[in-house]
């Protein structure tokens, strides 16, 4: 009996222990719940939002590139695509086969889509083909009921209406490479393209625009459930070039008649570039829609370097186009006057060395003007010996050679104007007098780009202003106009007048080296200077055997150059032409320059104000700088 009561007491005690434990554990759970939901609530709220909210970037529209008249040079074409969403297709392969009957799809694309469909989440659309034309899209749209899972959409793809003509100038866009992925999250968007060369590269960040973003609620496998918020993307900056698209196209076509050539046409006063071309070229549209490996190999293997913009990065001996600089150096040094003459017997002897004039019989007595007209080398040999390399180099730099000119294209190269200090510093050797002689006719170490040669020409004919080239019209407003005009160079007008007379005779006098390429119509007359740049040294044997330059291999032939300006009175347009291995300036470069300068004068692009959208106040920016 007692035992029973004891047993009940034990039970009661233990029942309360159990009840107490239950209560305590409930308390622990309640405390934990409060800890999670109250104390840690904020933190977990953030984590929960992070879970469910995805930021979706909306690709911005790339800014257009237009020429000075507003003609589009780079636009965003609509790119129609056909996509398949695997989870909506009963049988992907069946849908693809049905599609193949309507549009052309390579067999490997079908294999690619099937492979991708087996790997990625079922709701992610897979691109089957892009670049569809309207008929294809219409045909697919009509038949959509029979094509489960398929849909069409439209994206944007960069397109260049002028094709090859603007390829070097504008460049092209391409997929972002690993090294290019930086801070801008838009770069990681699939299929996003950025500028790789030319203007596309130079103004890439501005033209890119600002990505929009949409906040979407996603579930655990990443499917979008609904859109919470949307900030539209902002279109990129529109870039207006000083270029005249049609003139650019004309220039490109004309250059393409040569195996390898480049040219620059610019405004002598403002420095605005009207055309800048390099041939051979390539089709930039082929790059935006995915270049085939074969075509890429072909472009790289071409000895004429179609991928190089030779107008800004080709460096050539300026040859006889440099003679104006030498002449000016002579005049400025006071060693010669306008009327100083020299006797050319076909060569010039310095010490035991003999330096040949291009005309083996010699030119007889020549003055400065005639030396330019007939391109007598001997006159400059003698002049250079008197003046010295440092003075020549100083004038050359003043005229824009041997340095980068802050041009907008990153491909711009500096060329080279050698002097004594340069040789000692770079080659560790003392300057030789013979090298001065060679430099006076733009040979030897001397190197210049077509762009620099055009600038040199501009500085001679604009009255001696240190004009620099530029190509984006917005910069006209920023720089050229706000600074009123370019710095005045210390050149006497009479010297300019004399040099211009010499150049005038080169083209428009019967004995001039470019007389054969003069403008028959006096309304479009122009002047200039030929140049023939040695690629290989002419050996004594060659000189004696009379072997002709055209008999040599293409790579060994001389470069042909021409720098010119027009009109004769109040020059506005300057032009430089380099025909690689074109044998002679008068036979290859001068006719080309003639065609360009006549066409330029006919079109007269500088006469019309630049059309800048949304900047009417800058409309007057024609770039005319008082002379």
């Amino acid at each position, binding site marked *: 009996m007692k035992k029973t009561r004891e047993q009940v007491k034990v039970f009661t005690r233990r029942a309360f222990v*159990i009840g107490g434990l239950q209560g305590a554990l409930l308390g622990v*759970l309640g405390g*934990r719940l409060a800890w*999670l*939901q109250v104390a840690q609530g904020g933190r977990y*709220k953030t984590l929960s939002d992070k879970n*469910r909210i995805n930021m979706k970037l909306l690709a911005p529209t790339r800014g257009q590139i237009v020429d000075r008249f507003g003609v589009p040079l780079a636009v965003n074409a609509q790119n129609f695509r056909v996509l398949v969403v695997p989870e909506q297709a009963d049988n992907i392969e069946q849908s693809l086969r049905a599609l193949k009957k309507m549009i052309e799809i390579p067999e490997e694309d079908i294999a690619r889509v099937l492979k991708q469909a087996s790997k990625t989440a079922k709701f992610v659309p897979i691109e089957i083909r892009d670049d569809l034309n309207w008929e294809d899209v219409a045909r697919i749209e009509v038949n959509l009921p029979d094509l489960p899972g398929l849909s069409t959409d439209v994206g944007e793809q960069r397109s260049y209406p002028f094709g090859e003509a603007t390829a070097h100038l504008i460049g092209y866009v391409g997929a972002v490479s690993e090294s290019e992925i930086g801070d801008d999250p838009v770069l990681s968007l699939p299929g996003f393209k950025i500028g790789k060369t030319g203007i596309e590269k130079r103004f890439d960040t501005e033209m890119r625009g600002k990505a929009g973003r949409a906040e979407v609620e996603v*579930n655990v496998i990443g499917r979008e459930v609904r859109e919470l918020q949307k900030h539209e993307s902002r279109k990129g900056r529109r870039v207006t070039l000083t270029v005249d698209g049609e003139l650019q196209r004309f220039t490109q076509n004309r250059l393409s008649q040569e195996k390898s050539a480049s040219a620059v046409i610019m405004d002598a006063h403002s420095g605005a570039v009207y055309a800048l071309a390099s041939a051979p070229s390539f089709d930039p549209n082929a790059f935006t829609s995915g270049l085939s490996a074969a075509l890429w190999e072909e472009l790289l293997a071409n000895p004429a370097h179609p991928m190089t913009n030779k107008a800004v990065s080709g460096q050539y001996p300026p040859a006889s186009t440099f003679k104006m600089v030498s002449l000016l150096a002579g005049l400025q040094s006071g060693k010669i006057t306008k009327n100083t003459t020299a006797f050319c017997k076909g060569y010039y002897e310095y010490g035991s060395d003999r330096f040949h004039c291009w005309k083996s019989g010699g030119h007889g007595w020549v003055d400065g003007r005639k030396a330019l007209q007939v391109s007598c080398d001997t006159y400059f040999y003698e002049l250079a010996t008197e003046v010295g390399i440092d003075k020549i180099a100083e004038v050359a730099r003043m005229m824009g050679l041997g340095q980068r000119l802050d041009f907008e294209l990153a491909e711009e190269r500096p060329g080279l104007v050698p002097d004594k200090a340069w040789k000692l510093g770079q080659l560790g050797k003392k300057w030789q007098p013979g090298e001065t002689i060679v430099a006076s006719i733009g040979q030897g170490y001397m190197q210049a780009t077509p762009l620099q040669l055009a600038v040199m020409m501009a500085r001679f004919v604009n009255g001696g202003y240190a004009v620099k080239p530029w190509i984006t019209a917005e910069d006209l407003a920023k720089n050229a106009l706000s600074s009123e005009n370019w710095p005045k160079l210390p050149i006497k007008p009479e010297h300019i007048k004399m040099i211009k007379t010499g150049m005038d005779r080169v083209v428009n006098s019967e004995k001039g080296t470019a007389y054969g390429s003069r403008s028959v119509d006096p309304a479009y007359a122009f002047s200039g200077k030929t140049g023939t740049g040695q690629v290989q040294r002419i050996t004594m044997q060659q000189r004696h055997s009379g072997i002709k330059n055209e008999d040599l291999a293409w790579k060994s032939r001389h470069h042909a150059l021409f720098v010119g300006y027009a009109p004769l009175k109040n020059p506005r347009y300057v032009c430089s032409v380099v025909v690689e291995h074109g044998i002679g300036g008068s036979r290859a470069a001068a006719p080309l320059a003639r065609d360009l300068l006549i066409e330029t004068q006919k079109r007269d692009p500088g006469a019309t104000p630049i059309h800048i959208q949304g900047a009417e106040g800058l409309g007057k920016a024609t770039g005319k700088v008082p002379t």
Partner: protein
Amino acid sequence: MSRSITLHSDQNIFERFKHLNWGLVVLILAVSCIGFTALYSAAEGSFSPWASKQMMRFGVAAIGMIIIALVDLKWWFRLTWPLYFLGLSLLIIVEVMGHIGMGAQRWINLGFMQLQPSELMKIVVVMALARYFHTASYEDMRRLPFLVIPMFVILAPVALVLLQPDLGTALMIGMVGAAVLFIAGASIWLYIGGAVMVAASVPVAWHFMHSYQKQRVMTFLNPESDPLGAGYHITQSKIALGSGGINGKGFLEGTQSRLNFLPEKQTDFIFTLWAEEQGLFGGALLLALFGLIFFYGLWIALHCRQNFPRYLALGLSVNFSLYVFINIAMVMGLIPVVGAPLPLISYGGTSMLAALIGFGLMMSCSLSRDSKISR
């Protein structure tokens, strides 16, 4: 003998129905309704596929519960051993079927539901122990040889469930058995010795554990170490609970569950869904209702005058509360992930059936609290 006179020994069915513990029935109904609501939300505001089926099961199981309650306790007392051996047989059948079939099998397909014998076994073990200790004296409980049979009663099903292998359920059967031994007055020293033995056997158990079980323990010890792997479930569950805050995200607005970040939201993680949407208020309300049910079980046990109903009622209460604690502690990241449903709330037939059978027996105890059980 001055044993108290039986007052309700001759109760008829109607009297028993009248005296049913309607308070407990209301509590069970309230908790179950929270379950239906949560399941309705888990299906994104739809009765199908879970809520409607769960309600039907509840209806059927509730009728079963009342029938069980109305049956006089002496019948349950007499049926205990047959039921125990039936349960063991079912466990063996499942085991054999598992061997014939493919891989681990824990349930028998009854057509309308899939029965997990191990769930029912927990109740039967409590019954068997209560039955065994019914006649035990104070001294019996202190004699170790007397406790050999109860040990077998517990360890036989534990071993069979371990073979399935279902570590979680096996542990729970063991814990419930140990709790009944404790209730019945087994020496405290038995527990201290047992604890020492368990501690000593941990390395051995670790050796025999499946790699996924080891992984779960490791992940429990440091869930953030593997946020995309095994720790993912717990991390997401904690995020869901925490982000619910005090007021909750609102009915049908639980983003973690609606967007499927929460795993098994209709079964093991249903408490998380409820507390995410209803916040601390909803979570605490559910905990309070569970607390009242525990209290009811304790109250019934304390008012019984016989050992069998005393041990049975309290043992069943412990069994029920163990489920609750293990499930909720798991979703809160307090213990490792074990596949344990939340009784009355989680979607699942066996769990609902087992819970209501337990309450039916508890009420039968209550109705027969004053009667004397004779063999």
